[in-house]
């Protein structure tokens, strides 16, 4: 798995920040699924549960273990849009990627 930051994302990411690919459990009765999200985090705020993953540029991306497991073997591109002072980091994963991964329907990248 390689997570690549495009030029805009690289430009918007501050030196002390990393991109985190997070995972959110979505409960369904007594079984669950989940969904990915992407956000930035200060390097000093990284908690132990997050793992560094192969990324370009190196060391710029961390992932939740479950997110990692579902993305293993895929190439993902992270981009960024700016609306005024707010930066929106996004990925090229399809909508419902987490659901698709849990149900075995996430197409290969």
């Amino acid at each position, binding site marked *: 798995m390689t997570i690549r930051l495009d030029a805009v994302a690289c430009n918007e990411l501050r030196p002390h920040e990393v991109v985190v690919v997070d995972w959110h459990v979505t409960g369904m009765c007594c079984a669950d699924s989940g969904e990915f999200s992407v956000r930035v985090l200060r390097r000093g705020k990284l908690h132990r549960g997050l793992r560094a993953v192969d990324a370009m540029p190196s060391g710029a991306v961390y992932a939740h273990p479950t997110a990692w497991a579902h993305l293993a073997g895929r190439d993902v591109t992270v981009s960024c849009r700016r609306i005024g002072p707010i930066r929106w980091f996004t990925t090229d994963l399809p909508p419902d990627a987490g659901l698709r991964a*849990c149900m075995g329907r996430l197409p290969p990248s």
Partner: protein
Amino acid sequence: MNKTRLRSVLVWTVVAVVGAVAWAVLALSRGENVSAVWLVAAALGSYAIGYRFYARFIAKKVLKVDDTRATPAERLDDGVDYQPTDRRVLFGHHFAAIAGAGPLVGPVLAAQMGYLPGTIWIIVGVIFAGAVQDMVTLFFSMRRDGKSLGQMARDEIGPIGGAAALVGVFAIMIILLAVLALVVVNALAKSPWGTFSIAMTIPIALFMGVYLRIFRPGRVVETSVIGVVLLIAAIVAGGWVQTSSWAGFFTLEPKTLVLWLVGYGFVASVLPVWMLLAPRDYLSTFMKIGTIVLLAVGVLVTAPVLKTEAFTEFAFSGTGPVFAGSLFPFVFITIACGALSGFHSLIASGTTPKLIQKESQVRLIGYGAMLAESFVAVMALIAACMLDPGIYFAMNAPAGVVGTTVQSAAEAVSNLGFTITPAELQAAAAAVQETTLVARTGGAPTFAVGMSEIFSEFLGGDAMKAFWYHFAIMFEALFILTTVDAGTRVGRFMLQDGLGNVWKPFARVSWRPGLWICSAAVVLAWGYFLYAGVSDPLGGINQLFPLFGIANQLLAAIALTVCTTLLIKSGRVKWAWVTGIPLAWDVAVTLTASWQKVFSSDPKLGFFAQREKYADALAQGKLLAPAKNTDQMEAIITNSTVDGVLAAVFALLVIIVILDAMRVWRKALLGPTPPTTETPYVASTLPESPKLVDLSSR
């Protein structure tokens, strides 16, 4: 015998004796006061024995787990950047994923038959069926790089079994959403306190989403603390709202709540994940684990006495007011989550198998987490059985049986053979600051009353009872609202995926009209059943819950069929009974229940008999109780027809899957050994994990 072995034998002997004594007390007590602590001891003792001996036997002899073999978590990456998840962390993730609202509702409803049938099924069921299903599914999925249940069904049984599994999952999703939403509606109807508190969880979650995304990115703990404080504040504020001029605004009729929930389900399922879903994930995980631990501590500290009999007459007569039908098969249908839940197979395949470190950990994570969920179900059963049976039946029987006033409820409960006075019913409602507890069906209010009794006894006394009641309602509703948006997402996704085979644009996930059309179709589908449930004069939950149970057990049958097929195809024929016996039991239960719901001539039990009775009466111009007009008569006729057809379809799906699987079994047994679908062996380079408890020589 060496020292370690002797110590092990002694420890396990003590555990077995404690468990056996507890079971003996439960089994032999008739008419005496039985402490809930015996139930806890029976459960924990049995779980310990089941985990130590049966789960170990399955892991070592049947599955032949091999820690020298690299798991998908190890193979998926290069082993440099990533360390497969620690088993304790993964246990927590898996448990948090499987322990939802399900185990809190079923046991409460099944308490109408007494405490013993539910207790036996929860404990024995989990040890020999539910935990086995979870563990074996996890193992086989792990050996196939984390394939989902649907994929394994398609690969191992064939396209027909696979398609039936897919239809089954979609159908269960719709019924599940309707049933759980009905639980929320019944808990919140005409309750301004509850409605206000729950309504506040939506802006709180949205605020947390924006806070986490825009104001303080990455401050998860800080955001969660703020969220929990705001939740508590919402509960306290609900008490003020109830006595303020706003009370009228938050006092909603069931049908109005249905419209709100349907609208909420649609919006929540199309909102971006970070806005509502992610912050609610943080909130509900903390609430779930914290509250369940607190409840377990509360039961052990307060040692409540079970006021229900071991078996009520409804276990044998099948005439219970909460749901119709006798002990077999309806206890086993009503209690799914906590004993055997097909839903678990969805999580045991897909996510968890991709994270596991070592193969032997399927025992802790697959089997152990299911035992923990079963314990949650035991807690819910205790909360229901510690209530006075008079209050229990006044709350859980539909309005058609107990009426809507405390006087009518007291009279109806007396006719059932239990004693309760109108004043006692009024006092019980006043204690939790509700206007009434009569006909508050669905299980959630009953569980909340039981939980408030336990909590108030050791945290705050009677003055806090109303707070704890509404805390419990919010705790359950939070789960359920999460289910509503997540379930709608899943249903919408499955519909998009399915329709994409018929008309290509639906398969394009970024095609927004497809997203909206499918979301609307799914919310309308469960919204229909929800609306039918709240407007059904016979009471919605007693009609819909058996359908939900049948659908859930259908999914369990599919999962157990896949597991049995894999055991046979992988050369473990002599151990096929491990999943084969639970499968046979599950099929017997599901088909018997479906048969009775479809073909029983008793109108209280059989949907079509019920339809015929009301249709005949309507043709003769008569009104049958509880219907008060022809519209209600027609509603009963329509609902019973739809429910009957669904019960028949579920039975048909089970039969299709089993027959298709039997074809595969025959081929595997008589023909040459089929090619394995396992990923090839790769040696593990990860070091062995140290033992969690080094108690004995294993």
